[in-house]
């Protein structure tokens, strides 16, 4: 153990790993936001509420239908995605071509309504959701005790993030999608059903939020406000990464988790603000964000 500024390297490694775990959630959530913004040009303020819905969906499955964690990992994002697509078809689609602020206001209002409804029914302390049996326990890494479930969240969200990046940037489907964003008229001329593509993309982004919600359920209390607490940080991540940049949001998500973890070690009081300090600094130097394509 070599102490560094009064902190042992052991403690440092442990905090870095914990930061990475939080970063996994930031990455997954900001990825969904980036997909939605990049493809639909909607600033989806309902993302936190949808993340919360994902967690509650899993909780419902367990407590009413006795469907466990593993099926929930698929069913909850699917269920919430369907809800998201209905929202897109009935409301968001009407805002096409209008200023960003309309989409922002609509989704923000939706978030408040959804959270209010859940809070009215469930109160604020939330509900417990157990860690799945397969991932109970943990491993002693020497410098820290790593719960198996946390290791799983890092691995799983990293895999989902990379797959998403690959699908959008490297496959034919992704190419069509990007074409639909860049020039919807021309893409339509090629026989692509652009509105349906957009609805599906929104559903996918929403599904990512719900997936993060299911991942979070065994770690945090399943609470109506769990998303509201997180969404502000996630937006900062997206802004730092560059609005709409897929890789940017993934890398920034993990990196900010790490920076936050380090801050918790060296100056805990600033742990909650460090993300915003970084955001301010990045915006000063690169207004389009670290990975942003255009200013």
């Amino acid at each position, binding site marked *: 153990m070599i102490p560094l500024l009064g902190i042992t390297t052991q403690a440092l490694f442990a905090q870095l790993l*914990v930061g990475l775990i939080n970063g996994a959630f930031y990455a997954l959530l900001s990825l969904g936001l980036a997909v939605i913004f990049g493809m639909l040009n909607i600033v989806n303020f309902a993302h936190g509420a949808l993340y919360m819905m994902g967690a509650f969906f899993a909780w419902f499955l367990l407590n009413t239908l006795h469907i466990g964690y593993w099926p929930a990992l698929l069913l909850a994002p699917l269920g919430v995605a369907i809800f998201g697509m209905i929202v897109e078809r009935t409301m968001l689609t009407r805002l096409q071509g209008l200023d960003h602020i309309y989409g922002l206001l609509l989704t923000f209002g939706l978030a408040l309504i959804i959270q209010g409804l859940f809070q009215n029914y469930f109160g604020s302390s939330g509900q417990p959701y157990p860690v799945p049996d397969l991932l109970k326990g943990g491993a002693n890494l020497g410098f820290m*005790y790593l*719960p198996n479930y946390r290791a799983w969240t890092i691995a799983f969200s990293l895999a989902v993030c990379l797959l998403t990046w690959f699908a959008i940037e490297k496959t034919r489907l992704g190419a069509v999608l990007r074409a639909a964003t860049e020039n919807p008229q021309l893409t339509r001329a090629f026989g692509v059903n652009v509105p349906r593509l957009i609805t599906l993309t929104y559903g996918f982004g929403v599904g990512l939020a719900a997936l993060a919600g299911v991942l979070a359920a065994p*770690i945090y*209390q399943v609470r109506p406000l769990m998303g509201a607490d997180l969404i502000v940080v996630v937006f900062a991540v997206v802004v730092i990464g560059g609005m709409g940049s897929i890789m940017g949001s993934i890398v920034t998500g993990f990196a900010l988790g790490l920076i936050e973890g380090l801050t*918790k070690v060296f100056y805990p009081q600033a742990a909650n603000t460090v993300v915003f300090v970084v955001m301010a600094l990045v915006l000063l130097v690169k207004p389009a964000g670290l990975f942003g394509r255009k200013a």
Partner: protein
Amino acid sequence: MTKRSLAGAACGLMLASAGSIFAGAALAQEKAIKVGVLTDMSGPYGDVGGAGSAVAAQMAIEDSGMLAKGWKIDLISADHQNKADVGSNLAREWIDQGKADVFLDLLTSSVALAVNQIVKEKNKVALISGAASSDLTGKACSPNSIHWTYDTFSQANSTGKAITKAGGDSWYFVTADYAFGKALERDTTTVVTANGGKVIGNAMAPLNNADFSSQLLQAQSSKAKVVGLANAGADTANSIKQAAEFGLTQGGQKLAALLMFITDVNALGLPAAQGLEFTESFYWDLNDKTRDFANRYSKRVKNGAKPTMVQAGVYSSLIHYLKAVETLGPTTDGAAIVSTMKSMPTDDEAMGKGYIRQDGRKIHPVYLLQVKKPSESKYPWDYASVVATIPGEEAFRPLAQSECPLVTK
């Protein structure tokens, strides 16, 4: 100004002030009481107080029997969002617009400390049930307020003492980074050291924190025998849940939830919370009276929850306030009402018999509880058994140690 006009002005002033006295008397003659519940309606403490506190206040108004005697009692409630500035603004607004003579609940120490000051300035009444900081009857005590339900000293003195005496002689704190957390840590430290234990360190977490893994890892590597959670509400539930995940208790460390409410136990579920010791001034399943109160309450809240000690305290304090006002007759002189309340013994369905001390501390027994195993729980909300009943005189800070200027030593 001539002498005559000066005299005229003086006469006019006298008349005016006499007029306002009459007007005041006329107003006071009206048998009206305005009750304000100021609490966290939507944040991490929403289930501890929140809408349930307003229900408890409504029950107290009905149970007081004063409505039948021609009193008009208005109830108003609002969300202070755990922000001292929001709470202060609401308090000023309610007082200036004549919407509240008495403030109830006042969850969150930072808000309570701020509102306390305003209430004293404007000579109203604050009956603090939700906030915990023992400073409210210490250096921040006021002739216009009573700290009703519990405080950081009584929590420390019960849970902290029991665990230290049972061999938990080295402590590490995970502390909520504001007035309440710091007061709870300070008071527990005093109790721990007085009982032969020592405190190794602490890790701060902001209010409404979701992830405690960083703080818990530090607690784990400190090798302290006891990890004291100086937080509350959803923060406590999250830290207990994550402590289990990181294997703190498996590693031989003991968790001390220094402030845990029955709603937190409900939120955690018995499998995660079993075995934890915690301290309450009210537990719904203590006796027939508390059960009756709790059942009446449950029927009126949306999710059928049992009342927390904060909500029971709101009921209890308002019952006593109304008794005092009935004795005094119509008045809005806050200091006079509080002084009358201090002179009368307290007795109500929820919290039983007790009294109020010079420094504004309400004294009643405090219960050291233990969360039941899932197999021991027989009916809904059957969550805890009483380990020890600590008499009020022992549980709360002795008057001799009080820094309150109101105490004549």
